[in-house]
């Protein structure tokens, strides 16, 4: 789906076109699900993704600005709300499906450990760092988009990137030492 097509669907969805909304939902569902997988544990991810789209439906008429940024802001709010309610497991373990996809993967990391280790390390990051890593490296968003989603400046995002990668490296090193 190109940008023009997305904008057309968005305009229709804002005016209450349920078919356009369904198409948008179908298009963005995998991205939001992936985001949720790295923010929360696998079982909650699907439910929370559904919640994100329910909120999209409820507020689509008021949507302004970049849709993707708005969508991820909603997703971040959903994660925050659920973590406040204590529904998210803080010490995450590897989801079976993720394990399976990693085991079947072709290029396990040599230097910083396997992808499973990386996943477990991500879980141990602070909320801000985890959100940043998910948006930047899992979702592939630009610093400008992340700045809009999180309400920070691009300079602050660069700082957060440095701290997140440093922290992740430290966690992975300590995990490696434990394994040895």
């Amino acid at each position, binding site marked *: 789906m190109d940008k023009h097509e997305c904008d057309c669907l968005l305009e229709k969805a804002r005016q209450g076109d349920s078919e356009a909304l369904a198409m948008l939902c179908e298009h963005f*569902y995998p991205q939001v*699900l992936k985001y949720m997988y790295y923010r929360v544990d696998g079982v909650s991810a699907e439910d929370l993704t559904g919640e994100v*789209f329910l909120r999209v*439906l409820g507020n689509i008429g008021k949507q302004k600005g970049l849709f993707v940024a708005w969508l991820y802001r909603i997703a971040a709010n959903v994660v925050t709300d659920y973590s406040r309610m204590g529904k998210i497991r803080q010490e995450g373990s590897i989801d079976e499906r993720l394990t399976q*996809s990693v085991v079947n993967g072709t290029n396990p990391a040599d230097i*910083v450990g396997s992808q499973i280790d*990386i996943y477990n390390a991500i879980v141990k990051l602070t909320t801000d760092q985890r959100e940043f890593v998910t948006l930047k*490296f*899992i979702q592939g968003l630009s*610093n400008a988009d992340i700045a809009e989603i999180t309400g920070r400046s691009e300079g602050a995002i660069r700082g957060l990137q440095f701290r997140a990668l440093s922290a992740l490296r430290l966690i992975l090193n300590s995990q490696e030492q434990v394994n040895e």
Partner: protein
Amino acid sequence: MNNNKIEDILDRCIAEVSMGKTAEEALRQYPEVADDIRPMLTLACELRKLPGPSTSVSGLIRTMAKLSVQQTGKKTTAQRRKITLLSHSVLIRAAAVILIFFVAGWTTVTSSAQALPGDFLYPIKLFSERVRFFLAMKQENKAELCIVFSEERVKELVKRHSKGGGLNKRLLAAMLNEAKMALDAGSELPEVSRDLLNSRVALLSQFQKQTLEQLEKRASPEEKQDLKTYLDICCLRCTWMEQRIDGSAPDSAQPQSKQRQGCWDTCPRQ
């Protein structure tokens, strides 16, 4: 090395790698920080390779079903809101009607304040006076209102006469009657308040007497005949009130005294 600079270099290297360069190619431009940045850049590359979950069809269907239910609920809520808005508009209309009646009533009563006997609004003026009298809770206030109404009758009498409306006997009788009612209303008041009221009634009687004397000068012979009766009563009342204030008149606790009957309880026929 400045932390901000490292952050910027790391960001630039990550951007170059995402555009297709290898980590080593990106780092080659920054040899002074290459060793510091390399582990983080490698990690960033590994992060990009992390797999996403396979999209579960059942999850997508569940979400779509939820959206569908929500949308139906949204429509029902919109319909309910319409009904609520409708009932709001009914309330607003009712409030508007009440407001119109209130404003119309208030305007009529205000306009009627200047009305004279024979005018269309004069009965409304009298009615509003009766309402005010009825709503006054204290005897003191009721007595005060009677004095005000009596003064109003005197003014109406003069206005009507000056406009060529002749001498209105009904107004003359009402003028005297309101003064009597003021005195009666004050009979149960404490002594201090009663004394104050007596002074007010004495002044009122004096005002009535003077007004009638003025009217007498402009009155026709026939009117003078009628005025004489009322003027006599006013004179008697003034004398009686003076004696009462001096302490020589019988107390109002003896309302049936002959003197009082003579000037207060005898009211000419209207």
